[in-house]
């Protein structure tokens, strides 16, 4: 069968889109995963350190580091030079 040349086959990726995805994932880590785990610790383990500033800073920097790593990794996988 003939190849249909009318089908869009370019992978629609831009650095801006990757930055948005990486930022969303970092925010999910910081605003969903960390609060949920500290909620569990607070309500089921009575952890006095839950939601402490120290843990919040750790979660923030882990999320930030992950966001940067995710962006670089996704960029490496999708944006290629033609050389």
């Amino acid at each position, binding site marked *: 069968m003939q*190849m249909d040349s009318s*089908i869009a086959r370019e992978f629609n990726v831009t650095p801006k889109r990757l930055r948005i995805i990486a930022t969303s*994932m970092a925010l999910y880590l910081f605003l969903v*995963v960390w609060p949920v785990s500290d909620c569990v610790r607070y309500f089921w383990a009575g952890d006095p350190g839950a939601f402490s500033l120290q843990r919040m800073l750790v979660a923030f920097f882990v999320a930030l580091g992950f966001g940067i790593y995710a962006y670089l990794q*996704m960029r490496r996988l999708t944006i290629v030079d033609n050389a």
Partner: protein
Amino acid sequence: MESQTITLKSLFGKKEVIFVLETLTQVLGPYYLKIKFVHLLFATMWLWSTSVAYLNYVVPTMKAWLRSPNSEDALRDRNSMMERFDHGVILEHIAFPVVLLSGVCLLLAGGWTAQSYWLVIKLSVVVLVFLPIEIIDYWLSHFGGNKLAFRRRANVDALASPRYEQLVQYHWWFLVVTTPIIATAGMLVVYLATVKPA
């Protein structure tokens, strides 16, 4: 009708649930290390079983297509590779439910609770990160997103079907987005499961 409702309630009452959990804890307790062996074996199978194919076949083939998105040869290579990869993740997707099931058994056998911070972090990552990823992965690889099944069902040529192209691109987006997650969170859960930091 009323008596049936009462029976159902009593089946799922708090006391009965606690009784079942305590019984399971007693029954599974002596097998803790055996269950741990199964858990780790399947966890590593789940984590690593596709890595060679992904790094050495999927990524190079996809990059060749990204360089020449309209090359018929690159597209045929890409489609053939993705159909094989759909099949290749079967091992990973057999391992995942075993990991979940053995994880629940370990929880019961070991009497672990939310007092262990490492466990709370691990379960948060499993439930909030890996579970959604795997649900999408199951769909892409074995159900509606399976490329070979779609091609056969719709009786179309891969290069002549916009939907086929869409499925491949969805799958590639999925792999791109989940690569950094698996690379970091995968290592994290194995570390937490083995080291169990306080």
